[in-house]
């Protein structure tokens, strides 16, 4: 592909369509007339007609999603606020603290603390994502070798502060919700034929 056409900065020779903007009212009288004309034009009654017809038909036929009480389902590959998953069998946390997500994060917004725990294992004591900086690129979910960090469907992300972050407890599947935890089919998940790609190691026993 050639970049020629994008490099052409000569506006004059290109075919531009000029839009004629209507002249704006000048005197107070002209302004008043314009407001009255727009207020009582036909479109108002077209709209009102639709509303009243639907009201008459009753709620059964309405298509309105009553956000925020209702939300539309979201595709698995949608990348919204992260979730930290647990192992379905044991309920242990999946995250092993390898730090790959922290390293790959392009917005540098993941931080985690780990320690050597009593069972001689690496324990992730804290894990946080600064959503004020996260660009929801999905790299973290893609790099995670344990399918521990994934993007969930929760997209509401308003806050009074820029530095708005989630901590481990916010993201981690609670114990009682473990049975509802879905295996992640979305971004960064294994492909369907992943099993076939595994090479076997010979074992001496």
């Amino acid at each position, binding site marked *: 592909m050639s970049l020629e056409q994008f490099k052409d900065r000569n506006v004059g020779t290109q075919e531009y369509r000029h839009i004629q903007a209507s002249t704006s009212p000048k005197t107070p009288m002209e302004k008043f007339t314009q407001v009255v004309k727009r207020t009582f034009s036909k479109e108002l009654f077209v709209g009102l007609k639709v509303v009243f017809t639907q009201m008459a038909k009753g709620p059964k036929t309405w298509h309105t999603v009553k956000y925020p009480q209702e939300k539309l389902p979201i595709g698995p590959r949608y990348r919204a606020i992260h979730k930290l998953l647990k192992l379905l069998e044991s309920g242990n946390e999946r995250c*092993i*603290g*390898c*730090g*790959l997500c*922290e*390293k790959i994060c392009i917005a540098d917004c993941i*931080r*985690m*603390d*780990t*320690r*050597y*725990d009593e069972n*001689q*294992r*690496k*324990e992730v004591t*804290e*894990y*946080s994502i600064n959503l004020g900086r996260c660009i929801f690129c999905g790299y973290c979910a893609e790099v995670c*070798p*344990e399918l521990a960090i994934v993007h969930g469907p929760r997209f509401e992300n308003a806050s009074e502060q820029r530095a708005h972050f989630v901590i481990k407890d916010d993201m981690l599947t609670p114990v009682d919700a473990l049975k509802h935890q879905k295996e992640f089919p979305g971004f960064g998940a294994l492909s369907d034929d992943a099993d076939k790609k595994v*090479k076997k*190691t*010979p*074992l*001496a*026993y």
Partner: protein
Amino acid sequence: MVKFYLDGKEVTANKGETILQAARRNGSYIPTMCYLSKVKPIESCRICVVEVEGTEGFVLSCSTPVVEGIKVHTNSQKLFQHRSDIMKMYNVNHPLECGVCDKSGECDLQNKTLEFGVDSQEFSAKDMHRPVEDWGFIKYDPALCIMCEKCVSTCNEIVGEGSLQVKLGGYGSQIEFTGDDCGNCGECMAVCPVGALVSENFKYETNAWELQKVPAVCAHCSSGCELFYETKHAGAFTANEEKIYRVSNDFEYKSLCGVGRFGYDVTQRGGKDEKEFDAALSMLRKADAIRFNSRISNEEAKILQTLKERFGYKLLNGEAYAMQRFLKAFGSTSGERYYNGTLEDVKNSDFIAVIGTKVADDNPMVKFHMNMASKNRKARISYLHPIEDASIQNLVTQNIRYEVGTEEGVVALLVASLLKGNDLPSSVKDYFEELDIGNLSAESNVGEEELERLERALVRKNAKTLIVGSDLYTHGRAENMAKLLGLVQKYGDFKIVMIPSGTNTLGVANICELDASAEGTVVGYNAPGDYVIGMDGQLSTPPLPQQEGTLTTIDKRVVPTNAAIPFEGYTLNDLANALGLDAAHTIDYTVQLPKKAGYKAVEFDRLLEEYRPYSPEQNGYLLQNGAESVAMDLEEIAELPEYNGTVVYNCDPAGQMGALSAKSKNLCADDALLGSQQFAVAAKIKDGDTVRFEINGEKFVKVFKIDTSLKGVVAMNPLFSKGLSGDMLCSDYRFHKVNINVESGHNE
């Protein structure tokens, strides 16, 4: 010079160089797994093989010297296959735990597995249970160990402890920790190419790639070892707060002792406390003297000296003052400002005499270098000290135990022996002829036959070193001893190394005009005083690991160090500026360091440019050794003092280096008074007693422990737990007669 062909290119090798060394020097890559530059070739990995034309099979490049004209090929399909098979072997049953392993990201096994494209395994062996072992500060995971044996070689050839050995058992081979002698230096951990050895306080704390390496110099002793402080934010939720997670170093060529490697948790947070700053200023305005210790940079010493010149403060630093006088007297006979030896000279010696220092505790790096001399050059080592040091008995070939206090006599006898057979001017010759050897020998308990044995050991040695320690600098007759030692440098073929007692004692002695004593108000800088600035003081200032500046090391080298983590409070420079000096930063003083002491007018930032990590070269520059006017006014040996009864020797154990390291929680050294059975009898105390004694008005209450490796009636008294006042005791002669009182008995 030997010429040979490397992958078709004609190159030269130095005499005695191995193929691997020559190839690396010429920029050719040969992979290795067990090769470590600082020890002899281990030959356990066999991955460094190369092809030599005309030779059947592969040749081990790490241990085969270059022969004129050989044609070496470092890479071929066959070699690649061979190396790749070795990597497969290493990976048999290797736990798949890079995800949590502390070595991940800097692991040789990880790197070379990738390099040789090992993505499947044909070999297998029955796995076995290999539990993690606890080696003191370090944890050993035999499942991750690849049996490269770097740790064993390092412990033996560099550190000299031999605490590790290979436990052979085919597939079940592993490294065995034999224990007792381990000084917790962490050298084995530093050289381990995989995650098998990790320190307890770093294990699973963070990942290697998150850490930022700050090149610096160890703040704990005068060896000034280069190291990297590895830092990162202190925790997931800390804003702008940094923490040192570990210390690493250029382990391929250099070493660290345990204090340097683990004693990094001595940093401080500071804020700008303006009220305290004003209080400090008003104290300084009315003060007559500033007392300070030697754990400061050259630049800070220069600030103090400038303050003295401008406002007439007296400067007090007993330990550096002693060194200053000692060097001056030394120069009056040697004709040179400094001693002529370095650690490198110690390493290359075939004869070493040590006097006046418990060297393994005073300066571990000197001991490491003595060990290297012993292992590589089979050096004869004579150790002259009132206390036989059990921890270096494997190196020392001759122990000469002299009586406490008789150093002057011993130095005279030693110098006479060392200079025997050398051309001496008649005045010096006469001086030694007039020595009453019989009397000195009787008083000091150094037998003439012991000296004869020492002289015999000197025969046909051509790299001889004399190591001198702080027992001599602080002795009442220090100056005459220094003059005698100066003769050895002038007329003998010896290298002399003097161990400065504190981190930057040599720098302070060079830069400051110190005073013997002072009256009136004394402000302490990292030292006791009527008002204390710095460590443990009212106004806190950054400790050495949080400062930038230069230090003067035992090698008479000026080395730059950087601030590991920021310190937000005030510095000595701020105080000096408020008093009327003018320098934006402490390091503005680097160019002003005194030229007559051999410093160069180089800016600090230029010094940093010279910093070359990962290479055998040292950073910084060497002090110029200047000429001194010679005045041969040797004095008669004074009557040798007698120390009867119970005597204690002020000496921190190997795991501690004074007040700064005492702040570290990672380090744990025993603070007990250690004595022999004989000492216990003489002092009428028993093991476990809490005892009370006093040295120069400083009161000690300690547990007494019997150390069976000690002999005689001298006990070891660690000072580190006393903090700043303990540092001050280093200004005095280290042996003291004390009255020991029992506080409370055993099991009461």
